[in-house]
């Protein structure tokens, strides 16, 4: 099946074309087209994965253009890493699409929604399959476009916190700041070795043919791109705003596409990071700090969609930290995979709640467990996976990251990982208890909720099963995942006492977080947060998101961008153009003495000039003999 791997990427694009060209006016047909094509992608992905497990790899390549002997190509790189991602992306896209039939039912933009979802899957799969920097950058940008279109999907709605198109625009522009860094990184590499092909560049880097400083700078620049897409500090601000999009989109963005792109990029180009090792420190510490920053904000958000958004940022921080501390791809990619399933599950579950209760504010919710049993139960599974309780999938991958941090000697990051683990289990169970336990708040009594339709609950159940079992391929006792992804590396060998101890400690920490959440939120409904009463200063700091957005949108955008732009516009009019008119005025003044020639008809001047040229040409043509003397 490996030679047909290009089909994985092509199918969603075909779906996109069919939907916009043929089935646009028939919503259900559009959904069917999208789902069929994604299903084909998934089947091809699975068979490719089986083939790759069997030892096959391939690089398919197509010459796109050759300019001044610089080759631009489009390709499909089939190796363990891309094979895993193909399956993850197409599985989650498929489930999200099925779920969306129910969630988006009756929406006037139904077909548009499915066409965008297909385009999104195409972009992400194209990114994953890239065998060169130009291609990964192109699909990288397309992923950005799709998130812009989908976050701003409800373009005429006022939105929850801000209008959806504004959120989409912020996402595009903020991530594009990172893209500039990524682009410069590519240019730097291409100036050192005249190719954009991954394997050629990696081979040169590993063979030590390229300057270490150059590689370090290039790696950090590439990481800048990942900081944007994977919402790492300081470019994380777009992601919570992206919650203005329809919830299935959030699931897709947070699990399989968009944010996964950054982590995948760093993993894919690990050879460059490894050849310029200082860059790994940047990755590790930015990742660790982001994990903490986002978790701390997640503690106090009252909109449960936002809690989970910050949780994504925090988990992405874990992944980056894993890549940074280990200098290897396995731990980060493993967490990316497990996270994809449990995060998609969490989002789709809260989507089900929003669909039924029409609110995402926790103070409006409560007691939904009784009426929405499937949603409640599957959300619990997702929460346990996120919190890192064995044997749920998140436990194994998160534990591997913390273990890697300690093993690399960066003990500080190891402890940070444990602290964040505690915060994580607390905030997610805060959401769980506040939403599904207890009683409905008095002002919501009249509104009856009911479980969502099967198109929504079936994907939840499938994801819940996956959120449990996916982690089992990477336990410390038998890490098939690591062995598959990087067969050359040494994987632990045996399980030491430290590993077992760490597993115990992190389990206890996660349980403690759950217990605390239960003690505060499990027993009664709060209208005012306990933390806000006890420590208003800290609460304000956290709920204002460390004032980072205030700085960006309150200082940089109005003054650095719009204000400066208005100043430039004024400068252009008043000074530059004023100067031009001034000179014209002076010349005009001199011309006063020649006023006799001023007829008042502007055309006159132009005609005179042109006439002189034409007459001269005709004259010379006809009477060339007379001009012999010139």
């Amino acid at each position, binding site marked *: 099946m490996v030679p047909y791997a290009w089909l994985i990427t092509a199918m969603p694009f075909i779906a996109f074309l069919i939907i916009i060209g043929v089935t646009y006016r028939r919503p259900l047909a559009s959904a069917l087209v999208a789902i069929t094509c994604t299903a084909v992608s998934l089947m091809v992905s699975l068979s490719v994965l089986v083939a790759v497990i069997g030892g096959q790899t391939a690089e398919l390549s197509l010459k796109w253009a050759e300019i001044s002997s610089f080759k631009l190509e489009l390709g499909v790189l089939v190796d363990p890493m891309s094979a895993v991602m193909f399956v993850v992306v197409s599985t989650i896209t498929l489930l999200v699409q099925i779920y969306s039939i129910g969630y988006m039912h009756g929406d006037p933009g139904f077909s548009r929604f499915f066409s965008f979802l297909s385009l999104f899957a195409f972009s992400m799969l194209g990114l994953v399959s890239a065998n060169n920097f130009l291609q990964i950058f192109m699909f990288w940008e397309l992923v950005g476009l799709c998130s812009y279109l989908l976050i701003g999907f409800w373009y005429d709605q006022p939105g929850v916190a801000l209008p959806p198109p504004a959120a989409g625009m912020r996402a595009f522009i903020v991530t594009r700041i990172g893209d500039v860094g990524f682009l410069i990184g590519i240019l730097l590499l291409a100036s050192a070795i005249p190719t954009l092909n991954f394997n050629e560049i990696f081979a040169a880097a590993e063979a030590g043919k390229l300057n270490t400083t150059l590689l370090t700078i290039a790696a950090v620049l590439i990481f800048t791109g990942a900081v944007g897409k994977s919402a790492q500090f300081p470019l994380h601000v777009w992601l919570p705003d992206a919650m203005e999009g329809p919830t299935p989109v959030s699931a897709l963005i947070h699990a399989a596409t968009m944010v996964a792109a950054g982590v995948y990029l760093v993993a894919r180009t690990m050879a460059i990071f490894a050849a310029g090792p200082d860059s790994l420190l940047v990755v590790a510490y930015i990742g660790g700090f982001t994990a903490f920053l986002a978790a701390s904000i997640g503690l106090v958000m009252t909109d449960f969609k936002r809690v989970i958004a910050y949780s994504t940022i925090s988990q992405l921080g874990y992944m980056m930290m894993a890549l940074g501390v280990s200098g290897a791809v396995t731990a980060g990619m493993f967490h990316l995979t497990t996270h994809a399933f449990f995060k998609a599950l969490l989002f789709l579950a809260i989507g089900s709640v929003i669909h039924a209760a029409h609110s995402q504010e926790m103070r409006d919710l409560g007691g939904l467990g009784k009426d929405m049993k499937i949603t409640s139960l599957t959300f619990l599974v997702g929460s346990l996976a996120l919190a890192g309780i064995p044997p749920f999938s998140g436990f194994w991958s998160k534990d591997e990251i913390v273990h890697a941090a300690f093993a690399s000697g960066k003990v500080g990051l190891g402890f940070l990982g444990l602290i964040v683990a505690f915060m994580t289990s607390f905030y997610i169970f805060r959401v769980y208890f506040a939403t599904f336990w207890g009683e409905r708040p008095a002002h919501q009594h009249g509104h009856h909720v009911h479980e969502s339709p099967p198109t929504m609950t079936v994907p939840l159940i499938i994801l819940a099963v996956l959120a449990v079992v996916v982690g089992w391929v990477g336990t410390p006792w038998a890490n098939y995942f690591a062995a598959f992804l990087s067969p050359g590396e040494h994987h632990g060998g045996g399980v030491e006492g430290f590993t077992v101890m760490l597993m115990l400690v992190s389990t206890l920490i996660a349980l403690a977080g759950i217990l605390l959440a239960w003690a505060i939120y499990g027993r009664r409904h709060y209208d005012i947060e306990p933390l806000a009463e006890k420590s208003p200063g800290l609460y304000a700091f956290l709920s204002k998101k460390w004032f980072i957005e205030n700085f960006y949108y309150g200082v940089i955008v109005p003054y650095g961008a719009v204000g400066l732009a208005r100043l430039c516009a004024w400068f252009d009019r008043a000074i530059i153009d004023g100067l031009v008119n001034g000179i014209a005025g002076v010349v005009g003044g001199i011309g006063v003495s020649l006023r006799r020639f001023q007829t008042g008809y*502007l055309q006159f*001047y132009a005609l005179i000039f042109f006439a002189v040229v034409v007459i001269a040409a005709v004259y010379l043509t006809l009477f060339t003999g007379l001009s012999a003397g010139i």
Partner: protein
Amino acid sequence: MPWLSLLLVLPVLGALIIFCTPREQDKTVKAVALLIGILETVISLGLYFSYDFHKAGLQFIEEYNWITTLNIKYFLGVDGLSLPMVVLTTFIFLCAVLASWGMSHRVKEYFFLIMIMETAVLGVFTSLDLFLFFLFWELELIPMYLLIGIWGSARREYAAMKFIIYTMTGSAFLLAGFLAMYFLAPERTFDITQLAKAGFAPGVQSLLFVLIFLGFAVKLPVFPFHTWLPDAHVEAPAPVSMILAGVLLKMGGYGLIRINVGLLPEGVKAYIPLLATLAIINVLYGAYVALGQKDLKTMIAMSSVSHMGFVLLPVAAMTPLALNGAVLEMFAHGTVSALLFFCVGLIYERAHTREIKALEGGLAACVPKIAVAFIIGGLASLGLPGMSQFIAEFLVFLGSFPVLRLPTVLGTTGIVFTAGYILWAIKRIFYGPLNPKWAHLKDMQHSYEYLPVVILVGLTVLIGFYPALITNWSDSSLLAMLR
């Protein structure tokens, strides 16, 4: 068959027929213009695909002595640098004719001038004799001047006057440069192919470079000579804006590559830091001024200034990769800016305002097709992959970075600001709840409104998906030129 001459003569023929058509027969006038537009497009495509780019060099040459004593020749020919511009020109004029279909004021004169201008622009791109080149260069000014001055909006006379005085001042330098070249050449000639072999001393080249650069800099336009452009665009009717941004600016870029880079490479080398600086000012300052605009049309005009920086940067870098990017950027920007100006025209026709603030309010709900067309144009303009400007700018960066590191790095930041002003404008105008005062606006409905969008989007996507359609042509010619 003298195909290039035919290309130049057909529009003049069309103009003559229009001239002889009775005043009240608007339909006939338009039909003639459309027919000529289609014929021109077909011929240019025929030339394009029968050009043998493996052989490179000039083809379809027509060379006749014209003014023998002065060694002035009627000398036409095209290569991979000029052919994309020729095709761009015929397409843009075709779209402009379609876009003018609703025109009702002095129709006969209007289309007469459009036809004359098409000949002039094609003449510039196909002339290989500097005298002939200059003649066509000047010939283009008159129709443009009149089109802005007669069919423009409120401040049309000011804008037209500014356009002509500014460009003619540039032309004076251009003429001085051409004459100097003529007299300094070992054998007095205006023949570009011979001047390329003239072997001017570096000092002479840098002097000639300045004169000729000034002429083209006004046209491109290069900061600080750009202020005629926003005025001209705002006042010009939409189809004229399409021509102005779509092809007239490219005459400046084409001239810079054909004459400054091709004939005076030592002159370019003497001014690399200055050129690179100006290019970056164009890109960043242009983008910032665009971001600060209140008028949608001025914003797009300034966006042209910004994007033309990506044509100037490769001139400074003088690497084949970057110059291929420049040719691609000219073609790409030609189609994309024409599309954007066309959309602005559609909006202006309906809402009678171009002010972003006044337009604010969910136009996507009442004119969804115009919204989609504008958004596609906007996304192309901000360099979205799959559309032509992305790969153009990527090549510009890729080719310029090894020789001009800092300027290229600064230039790349332009992509953020471009995204900023484009998306901000889209958000304010098209998104949000529908403003009741715009609820009555009608969407695109006539084929002459659809066709330009289809043609321009089609070209943008086609080149975006398969850039070799341009680079295969331009590459061999540029390599030959730089050798």
